[in-house]
């Protein structure tokens, strides 16, 4: 009996260990996947890194015939289109989050944010065809001629109304990332203590001033939401590819066509014929990967620091 008991104990122990190890291996698979992404990107860009070194990041020429590649116009296009997107999306997104969390009735707020989160599930190709077939003609016929006539003294708005270009890409990106900002900021605002507002109101603050106090408390988390949205904008591919015009040049004007790191990969990867050409595209993917990892890492830390263990549901999306 005693022997049987101890055997059972041993068997149980090892079964528990085995079960746990299997699950741990599955969890470890994620680490493997990320390691594979890094490995493939690094190995694939080896040729290009050897050929161009750091000059790859500052070169402006992209010539498949002469086999000379520089990624600066694409890096510039990615950064500027994302900057336009955030410029539009931050005030609108935070304003809507305040409306949904503080002003609207709880039921209305929950219902609208449910719809906004659903819209975040719309595939990016759909935003792309909307930007291409609907937004571009509007910009070409109405908005851009007006910008040129009235704000044309700024280098930002010089040139021709193509409809397709940096401005279009920025607007489409703003529409795409605004749900991220709204839903996370709303959750962060809801998680700040009610007593902050009550104390402010009791001291004679107006409702808007009381909300301002709550916003102060929520600021790191909202910053996290914004950086998360930045991460999405930087890596967004299909919508941008359809509306940015895919031209390899750096222009101060937002009306001009441009290209981003993601869009050049999408456009040229399956047509890249020479090994060096392909390798240069993979190096762009490597740079893009590095940038988004840094940006997302920072965002997750900020969101987690403000919300503690409570994780916003939208962060997974």
């Amino acid at each position, binding site marked *: 009996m005693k022997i049987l008991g101890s055997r059972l104990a041993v068997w149980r122990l090892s*079964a*528990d260990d085995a*079960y*746990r190890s299997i*699950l*741990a291996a599955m*969890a*470890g*698979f*994620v680490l493997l*996947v*990320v390691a594979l*992404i890094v490995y*493939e*990107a690094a190995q694939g860009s080896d040729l290009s890194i050897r050929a161009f070194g750091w000059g790859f990041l500052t070169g402006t020429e992209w010539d498949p015939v002469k086999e000379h590649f520089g990624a600066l116009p694409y890096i510039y296009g990615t950064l500027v289109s994302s900057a336009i997107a955030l410029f539009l999306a931050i*005030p609108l997104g935070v*304003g*809507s989050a*305040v*409306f949904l969390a*503080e*002003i*609207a009735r709880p039921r209305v707020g929950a219902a*609208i944010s*449910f719809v*906004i*989160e*659903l*819209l975040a*599930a*719309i*595939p*990016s*190709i759909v935003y792309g*065809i909307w930007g*291409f*077939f*609907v937004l571009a003609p509007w910009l070409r016929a109405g908005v851009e001629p007006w910008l040129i006539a009235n704000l044309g003294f700024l280098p930002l708005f010089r040139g021709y109304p193509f409809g397709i270009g940096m401005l279009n890409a920025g607007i489409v990106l703003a*529409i795409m990332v605004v749900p991220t900002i709204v839903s996370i900021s709303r959750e962060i605002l809801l998680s700040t203590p009610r007593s902050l507002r009550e104390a402010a109101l009791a001291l004679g603050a107006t*409702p*808007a*001033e009381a*909300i301002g106090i709550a916003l102060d408390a929520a600021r790191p988390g909202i910053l996290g939401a914004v950086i998360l949205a930045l*991460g*999405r904008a930087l*890596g967004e*591919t*299909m919508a941008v590819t*359809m509306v940015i015009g895919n031209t390899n040049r750096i222009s101060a004007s937002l009306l001009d066509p441009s290209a981003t790191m*993601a869009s050049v*990969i999408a456009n040229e*990867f399956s047509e890249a014929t020479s090994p060096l050409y392909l390798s240069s595209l993979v190096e762009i*993917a490597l740079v*893009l*990967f590095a940038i*988004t990892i840094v940006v*997302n*890492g920072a965002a*997750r830390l900020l969101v987690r620091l403000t919300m503690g263990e409570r994780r916003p549901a939208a962060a997974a*999306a």
Partner: protein
Amino acid sequence: MSEAVSSRASGHIAARAVWNRVALAACYGAAAIVILPLGLILCHLIAKGLPGLSFAFFTRMPAPVGEAGGGMANAVVGTLILVGLGACFAVPVGVGAGVYLAEYGRGRFAALVRYTADLLSGVPSIVVGVTAYGLVVLPMGGFSAIAGGVALGILMLPTIIRSTEEVVRLVPQSYREAGLALGAPRWKVTQEVVIPAARAGIVTASMLAVARVAGETAPLLFTALGNRFWSTSLDKPIASLPVFIYDYARAPYDDWNRQAWTAALVLVLVVTLISALLRITLRRVAQR
């Protein structure tokens, strides 16, 4: 003098009241402006996509260039195959990892896995496509459905892991204690008490992740590539709905552009309807 002070004070209060109104109105306005383009996109989708929608659109093959009509049967089947392939490896692994994080996830390793999964969900899908190209397309010597499935599977993984973890955490602690008190070893409690209790949640959460990925285009461009013809073989290029939309939207034919809108409408309807249903189910499961 005191009059002057009080009038200044009342002026100050009036200014604050005005500012209060302006700030609150700005928030209303922001919400309206956010909802407007999203609503517009839906309206355009319906207006431009609905006329082309018919049963035949789902059952016919694409027509040759210059010939009107045609459907997207191969793209619908292709998307199902690609998403199914991805789910085949991402769901078991992702659920296993999620259960690990919920049941055993207190150590440093678990924290690292959690953080890595979050980072992976932020990796641009086009980069995942490049990885799948290097991992599968190059060794196999050509574009294939398998490569596309691998790319989609990688994209599903982080969402499945984190949502499984959340759902499994919702199982009451007393279930585990009851199992252990009956003398069951811990693995048996996890396998036969905790996971069945969380099953509904795990299934909906995984399907949510799977539905999300169905609309991805970028990682398929140079893995599954696309195909104008009927193909269900896993080692050949295969058509998919998102790539169909991309190709047809860029084509210089009005008829093709119309079909792109219809396909987009179908894609959005399917993805949002499934997500809405699953989210509501998930909420109900969580409240129980």
